[in-house]
């Protein structure tokens, strides 16, 4: 790997007016109210090359309001998006979300105020027209060479089994370390999966303050869980994890932390906040696969590698999600769920370094346009993370 240099990257992408770079040119239909989601879906289903988000927020202002608006704005402004079509009711809160997205940086956008176009039917036909226009505009743009710093990588695992921490996660860590060294951003999430391993990560912080932040992020999470009297053993490890061989939360965490390799930690990010400079970060996210993916997207992450032992089809509308299986059995029995098999490490047919390099190569290929299994399957999952339930507060 000595022919890789930080000066000339192997990456091509689409620079956006605000300076960030995307690896896809999505046309996103973004409904700002749950009643508009069906129309958004109908538009994106009618126009090939467009995608949409579905959520359950209907404008309510509660303790989750800031979190929800940050995610909706950040997602709409993800650098992989060429154009965003907002479906709105023109409320003050919705307009604030749009402004917030514009402040982060949107390449192109249009707002459809359904109250001005005669309702849902008008929004549907206008939305289709706009989406078609944007899709053909997007096709006219070519990729250009972009630096390593353009890559904001998200590290995720779901449906973990006992091999996750032995095959796919450490192999991903090899790729992540290489990218961080070259000048990219790499982000590890899932606070539940740091519990029990946070001291190891804190010891790798570039700055002792960052180490303290890592410890505090986990402690804050524990306090919140304890305050609500939640028995985490009910959820982590999950039943699927336990069937696969994982016994304790700490065991899962030790294995999960391997995704971040050995690089030093540059910083800690709050949920859905972007990294401002190259390096390895830890982001406070829930363990819910889709909520984590959605938070990553809102933070401007433009590629995700997602390791899985049991296999999950999910992907984000705006981020190409590369699936790496932890075991050969899953890779052969449900091949359309995965892109790369790290189970060869357990089989003894490949080394950790070989698979790590293969993941690195796959990240480059996908960044440069290769479609992932999740993209081929049309997966566009989206979920809003709530710190407070829908029923209470």
């Amino acid at each position, binding site marked *: 790997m000595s022919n890789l240099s930080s000066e000339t990257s192997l990456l091509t992408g689409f620079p956006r007016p605000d300076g960030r770079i995307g690896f896809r040119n999505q046309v996103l239909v973004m409904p700002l109210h749950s009643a508009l989601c069906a129309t958004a879906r109908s538009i994106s289903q009618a126009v090939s090359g467009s995608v949409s988000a579905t959520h359950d927020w209907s404008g309510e202002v509660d303790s989750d309001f800031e979190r929800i608006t940050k995610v909706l704005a950040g997602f709409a402004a993800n650098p992989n998006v060429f154009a965003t079509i907002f479906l709105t009711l023109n409320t003050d809160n919705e307009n604030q979300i749009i402004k917030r997205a514009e402040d982060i940086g949107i390449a192109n956008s249009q707002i459809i105020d359904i109250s001005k176009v005669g309702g849902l039917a008008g929004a549907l036909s206008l939305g289709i027209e706009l989406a078609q226009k944007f899709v053909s505009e997007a096709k006219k743009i070519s990729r250009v060479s972009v630096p390593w710093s353009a890559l904001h990588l998200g590290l995720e695992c779901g449906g973990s*089994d*006992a*091999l996750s*921490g*032995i095959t796919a996660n450490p192999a991903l860590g090899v790729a992540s370390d290489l990218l961080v060294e070259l000048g990219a951003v790499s982000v590890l999430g899932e606070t539940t999966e740091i*519990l*029990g*391993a946070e001291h*190891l990560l804190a010891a790798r912080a570039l700055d002792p303050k960052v180490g303290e932040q890592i410890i505090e992020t986990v402690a804050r999470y*524990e306090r919140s*869980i*304890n305050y609500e*009297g*939640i*028995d*985490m*053993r009910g959820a982590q490890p999950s039943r699927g994890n*336990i069937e*696969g*061989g994982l*016994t*304790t*939360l*700490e*065991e899962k965490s*030790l*294995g999960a932390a391997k995704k971040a390799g050995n690089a030093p930690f540059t910083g800690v990010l709050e949920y859905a906040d972007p990294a401002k400079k190259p390096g390895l970060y830890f982001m406070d996210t829930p363990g819910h696969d889709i909520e984590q993916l959605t938070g990553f997207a809102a933070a401007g992450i433009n590629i995700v590698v997602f390791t899985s*032992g049991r296999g999950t089809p999910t992907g984000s509308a705006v981020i190409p999600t590369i699936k790496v299986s932890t*075991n050969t059995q899953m890779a052969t029995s449900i091949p359309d769920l995965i892109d790369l098999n790290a189970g060869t490490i*357990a*089989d*003894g047919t490949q080394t950790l370094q070989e698979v790590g390099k293969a993941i690195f190569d796959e990240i480059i290929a996908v960044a440069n346009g290769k479609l992932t299994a999740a993209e081929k399957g049309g997966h566009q999952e989206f979920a809003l993370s709530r710190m407070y339930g829908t029923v209470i507060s």
Partner: protein
Amino acid sequence: MRNLLILNTADNIAVALTDLKVGSKIEQDGLEIKVANKIPRGHKIATKNIAKDEGIIKYGERMGHATSNIEIGEHVHTHNVLGDRLSAEQVK
């Protein structure tokens, strides 16, 4: 096909890479273990005797504690191990 994955010399468990049958003998990396329970692929087997309350060590780190005495060759899982953090007992 190797039967066990031993991650760290400090560990007192190993991960089964294939379903292990009761009574089968494993000789690997200087270890000689008689499998005491049926152990599914991906699950853990004790490679040393572990006393009640002693730490379960994986990757050279503590991942929980034994809730009863565990002998070499036994299945190590939720029936004889508890995590150290966020268990229902700690919450109270």
